[in-house]
C-alpha cells in the first residue's frame, strides 16, 4: 500500500486583518485575516519549515526523493527541490523535481510521487512540499485573498500507514485566466473573474465526480473533501453541487488564513486530520489549468492522532501567530515599496564549499576534548587547540541566548531596527552567532537565557543570487 506516513505545515507568524486593507484603499471590507510571510521568507524558506515539521522524529537520510510544488519559484532556472533537500539534510542519491506554474502543482506532485514509488523498487518514500507566496496587486480583490504558507507530506510504501491513497484522477484544461507572464507581469492577472470562477467550478466538480464514479462511491460515502478554493461562496456552491453531507467540505481556512495557493488543499486536509474518523473516505482536489483528485482513506485513527501530537501542523502554528496593526508593515514585508537595499558580498563557491555549515547546520565535535563547535571550517579546537581532531555532528535547531546585542545600524533588509544579534548555546552543544527575526519590542523582549528556535531565512542578494542562512526566533513550538 502507498499512503501518507507523516505531514507538516508552516504558517508565517503574522496575520493581516482584511479591514486594514479596506481602510488603506477605502474599500468595503471582507471579514477575517490572512497569513503573510515576513520580508526574509520565500517559497524555499517556508518549504524548509514545513519539511522540518514533517520530518520530526524521522531520519532525513531515509527519504528517497523530494518533489517541490509552487507557483512562486525563487529561480526560473535553478531547482528548488534540490536546495530544500540539501537544507533538510536528505541523502545525495535521491530524486528531486519542481512542479510549478499551476495551482494544482501540489496535487500533481502527490500523484506523480505515487506513480514513482509504484514503478521503482528502490524508491519507497518521497517528500512532497508545497509552498506559495503569491503577491497580490495592492488595491485589488486578490489582496484580500492571497496568503502565504507551506505544507509537507511524506508518501511511503508500507503497511500500517495512517492514510492510504486509493486512487487518483486528473483532467487537463486550458483557459487564459488567471495568468502571470514571465517577464511582463509583476502580479497575477485575470481577464474576467466570473468566467474564471465558472471554469474552476466545472473542473473541480468534474474531477471529484469522476473519481467517485470510478470507485462506485456516492456523495454520502465521502467524509472529508479538501478541495482548493479562493472564494467561500463558491466553495459552498461546490459542496451543494457535489451533494456532500454537512461538514464534509473543509472550509475553515479562507477567513482565518486566506488563499494559500498550491498548499491550500493540503492545509485543508491537515485541518481535517485533527479529528479523524476511522476508515473515513477522503477526497483531496487541486485546481489549475485542469484539476487533480486524489482518493484516500484514514486507515489508522490512533497513529493520525499521534501525528497531530508530534507535529506543529496547522494548529501549532496558529497558536503563535500575531495580528498586525498596521498595513504599512505588510507593504514593507512584501517589498512593494522600491527602496535601495544594502547588498553584501557573496560567492557561489564559498556557499557550495560551506554547505554543511551554512545550509545543513552541522558543527564539529573535538575527539580530544569533546567540545561541540561551529562553524565546521576551523580545523583546530577552540577549547583544547588540538589540530585535525574534528568529526562532523548535526546541531540542534534550538537553544538559549547566551548573550546578545541590539544593532541599530545593521545593514540589510530588516523590517525594524534594532536587530537583535544573538549568541546562542544550542541544545546538545555548539555556540553560534545569528540574528533574531520576528521579535516585537526587542528592547523589552530579548533576554539572556531566552529559549529560541533556528529558522532558515533569506539574508541578502549579494553576487546577484539569493543568500540564505539561519536566524533565531522566539519559540513557536517546533518539535
Amino acid at each position, binding site marked *: 500500500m502507498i499512503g501518507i506516513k507523516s505531514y507538516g505545515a508552516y504558517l508565517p507568524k503574522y496575520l493581516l486583518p482584511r479591514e486594514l486593507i479596506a481602510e488603506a484603499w477605502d474599500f468595503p471590507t471582507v471579514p477575517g485575516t490572512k497569513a503573510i510571510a515576513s520580508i526574509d521568507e520565500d517559497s524555499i524558506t517556508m518549504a524548509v519549515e514545513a519539511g522540518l515539521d514533517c520530518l520530526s522524529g524521522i531520519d532525513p537520510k531515509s527519504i528517497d526523493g523530494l518533489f517541490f510544488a509552487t507557483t512562486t519559484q525563487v529561480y526560473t532556472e535553478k531547482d528548488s527541490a534540490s536546495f530544500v533537500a540539501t537544507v533538510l539534510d536528505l541523502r545525495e542519491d535521491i530524486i528531486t523535481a519542481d512542479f510549478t506554474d499551476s495551482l494544482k502543482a501540489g496535487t500533481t506532485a502527490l500523484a506523480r510521487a505515487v506513480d514513482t514509488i509504484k514503478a521503482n523498487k528502490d524508491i519507497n518514500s518521497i517528500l512532497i512540499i508545497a509552498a506559495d507566496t503569491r503577491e497580490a496587486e495592492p488595491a485589488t480583490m486578490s489582496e484580500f485573498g492571497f496568503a502565504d504558507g507551506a505544507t509537507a507530506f511524506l508518501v511511503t510504501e508500507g503497511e500500517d500507514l495512517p492514510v492510504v491513497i486509493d486512487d487518483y484522477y486528473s483532467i487537463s484544461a486550458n483557459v487564459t485566466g488567471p495568468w502571470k507572464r514571465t517577464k511582463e507581469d509583476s502580479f497575477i492577472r485575470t481577464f474576467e473573474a466570473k468566467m474564471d470562477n465558472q471554469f474552476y467550478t466545472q473542473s473541480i466538480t468534474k474531477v471529484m465526480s469522476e473519481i467517485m464514479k470510478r470507485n462506485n462511491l456516492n456523495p454520502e460515502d465521502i467524509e472529508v473533501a479538501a478541495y482548493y478554493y479562493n472564494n467561500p461562496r463558491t466553495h459552498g456552491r461546490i459542496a451543494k453541487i457535489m451533494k456532500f453531507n454537512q461538514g464534509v467540505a473543509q472550509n475553515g481556512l479562507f477567513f482565518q488564513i486566506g488563499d494559500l495557493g498550491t498548499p491550500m488543499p493540503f492545509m485543508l486536509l491537515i485541518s481535517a486530520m485533527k479529528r479523524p474518523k476511522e476508515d473515513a473516505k477522503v477526497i483531496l482536489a487541486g485546481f489549475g489549468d485542469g484539476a487533480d483528485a486524489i482518493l484516500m482513506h484514514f486507515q489508522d485513527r490512533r497513529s493520525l492522532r499521534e501525528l497531530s501530537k508530534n507535529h506543529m501542523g496547522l494548529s501549532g502554528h496558529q497558536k503563535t501567530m500575531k495580528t498586525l496593526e498596521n498595513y504599512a508593515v505588510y507593504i514593507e514585508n512584501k517589498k512593494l515599496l522600491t527602496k535601495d537595499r544594502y547588498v553584501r*558580498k557573496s560567492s557561489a*563557491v*564559498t556557499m*557550495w*564549499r*560551506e554547505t554543511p555549515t551554512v545550509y545543513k547546520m552541522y558543527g564539529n565535535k573535538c575527539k580530544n576534548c569533546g567540545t561541540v563547535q561551529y562553524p565546521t*571550517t*576551523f*580545523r*583546530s*579546537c*577552540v577549547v583544547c*587547540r588540538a*589540530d*585535525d581532531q574534528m568529526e562532523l555532528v548535526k546541531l540542534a535547531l534550538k537553544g538559549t541566548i547566551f548573550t546578545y546585542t541590539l544593532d541599530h545600524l545593521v545593514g540589510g533588509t530588516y523590517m525594524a531596527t534594532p536587530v537583535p544579534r544573538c549568541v546562542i548555546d544550542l541544545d546538545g552543544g555548539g555556540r553560534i552567532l545569528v540574528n533574531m527575526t520576528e521579535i516585537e519590542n526587542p528592547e523589552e523582549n530579548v533576554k539572556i537565557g531566552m529559549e529560541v528556535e533556528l529558522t532558515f531565512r533569506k539574508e541578502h542578494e549579494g553576487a546577484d543570487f539569493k543568500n540564505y542562512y539561519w536566524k533565531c526566533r522566539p519559540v513557536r513550538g517546533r518539535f
Partner: protein
Amino acid sequence: MTVKGIKDKVAIIGCDATKFGELWDKGREDLLFEATQGAIKDAGIKKDEIEAAWAGIYYYFTGMSGATVEDILRLDGIPITRTENYCASGMDAFRNACFGVVSGAYDVVLACGVDL
C-alpha cells in the same frame, strides 16, 4: 643615513606552502591551516611555542584582523598582526616577524599569508 639591516640576526627554522591553483574546495581556513601546520612540523616545534604571529592578507576584503589567524590556528593569547600592503602584504608580514625576533621581544614567531 645608513640602513643597518638585520642580516644574520634571525633565521627561518621551518617553512611550507600549499599547492597553488584553482582550489574550489578549499577556503582560506584550509589553506592557512595546511601551510602553518607544515611549517610547524618542518621546524620541529609545537604550536604552543609560537609567541607572536604576523599574517599577510590582501584580497578577500579589508577590515579583517589578526583574529583571522587566531580563529584558524586557535593561537589565542598571543599578539597577532595582520598586514596589508598590496602585493607586498606577505613580504611585510615576514619582515615584521623578523623584526619581532631581532628586537629581542620574541624567540619564535610565525609569518604567514593567504589569499584566494
